[in-house]
């Protein structure tokens, strides 16, 4: 999922302090899973903002809504009937959702309540780690299902660097050396021979390096 974390309250207050009527919108997908912008977090932020503003002497009107997703126009449209009741939108979705809100509701300022971080998976409850960088040309079949693009600090494609120590990366003892993980996995699969297949220099044009990307499905797009 796309992971995110709530911005410091101070920063959010700076965005919204000129406004008296806020629409606080959450998202029921990725940011719910990483406990950053779902229905619960919308309630918490609304309460925290209310307390902060009342401390400064005036209550504000905060409407709380959680959409199924903010990255699909059909769901964003659900806010149209109540949009006149707000002076500003504070979105608790990832960057994709914030931009969709801004695109649809052009007359209202839209602010992000979260810092969108990375595409990742849950390691255990409450812990999420980066797994995918969207390089556009997936090589997981060659590395036993472990990604060196996302998980190697240097994005090396042909084995570890000299900094790999006891299975850890030299940048931090908390970071696994992904090439150690890949080797261990290939061994357990009986595919050690695959390790010596050289991966040529990656064509990064399919990645963000080739510019902003788009997918068009001819069979689905009208």
């Amino acid at each position, binding site marked *: 999922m796309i992971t995110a974390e709530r911005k410091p309250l101070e920063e959010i207050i700076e965005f919204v302090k000129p406004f008296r009527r806020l629409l606080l919108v959450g998202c029921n997908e990725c940011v719910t899973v990483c406990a950053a912008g779902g229905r619960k977090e919308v309630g918490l932020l609304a*309460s925290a903002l209310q307390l902060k503003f009342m401390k400064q002497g005036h209550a504000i009107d905060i409407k709380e809504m959680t959409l199924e997703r903010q990255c699909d126009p059909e769901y964003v449209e659900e806010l149209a009937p109540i949009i006149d009741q707000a002076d500003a939108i504070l979105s608790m979705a990832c960057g994709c959702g914030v931009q969709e809100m801004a695109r649809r509701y052009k007359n209202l300022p839209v602010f992000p309540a979260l810092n969108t971080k990375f595409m990742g998976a849950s390691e255990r409850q409450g812990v999420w780690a980066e797994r995918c960088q969207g390089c556009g040309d997936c090589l997981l079949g060659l590395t036993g299902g472990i990604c060196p693009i996302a998980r190697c600090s240097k994005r090396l494609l042909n084995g570890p660097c000299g900094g790999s120590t006891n299975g850890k990366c030299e940048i931090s003892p908390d970071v696994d050396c992904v090439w150690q993980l890949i080797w261990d996995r290939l061994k357990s699969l009986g595919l050690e021979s695959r390790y010596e297949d050289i991966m040529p220099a990656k064509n990064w044009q399919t990645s963000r390096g080739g510019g902003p990307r788009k997918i068009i499905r001819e069979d689905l797009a009208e």
Partner: protein
Amino acid sequence: MNQFEPVIVAFCCHYCAYTAADMAGSQRLSYPPNVKIVRVPCSGKVDAIHILKAFEKGADGVYVAGCLEGDCHFKNGNTKASRRVAYVKKMLEEIGIDAGRLEMFYMSAGMGERFSQVARDMTQRIRELGPNLTTKAAVEGTHKAVA
């Protein structure tokens, strides 16, 4: 000028803290009437939003009372509650509310004296911190004192 009498909400778990409160009653131990008890099945039921809403609606102080560490009736509800209380304390600092207004306490069902001591201590702590000025009532100048 009336002396400020704080309003304190105590989320008490049914199996330990609430029973301790009951024990205090049976032993005729007095504790301040400022403490309003909300009985929950386990302190782990208490979520961050319950605490923040209590402050929003006029509480000057809040505490969560659960079983002794290692003795939670539901195994680890009290550790969950403790982590959530720590999380909300950080939020309170961000909002500008003194984190001392929120606390986590542990006690067993037989500790009537401890329950009343905690109630007295919290009431005194909140009395010293003063009224919570972030409530609608405070903003509108109608902050009520407890008789």
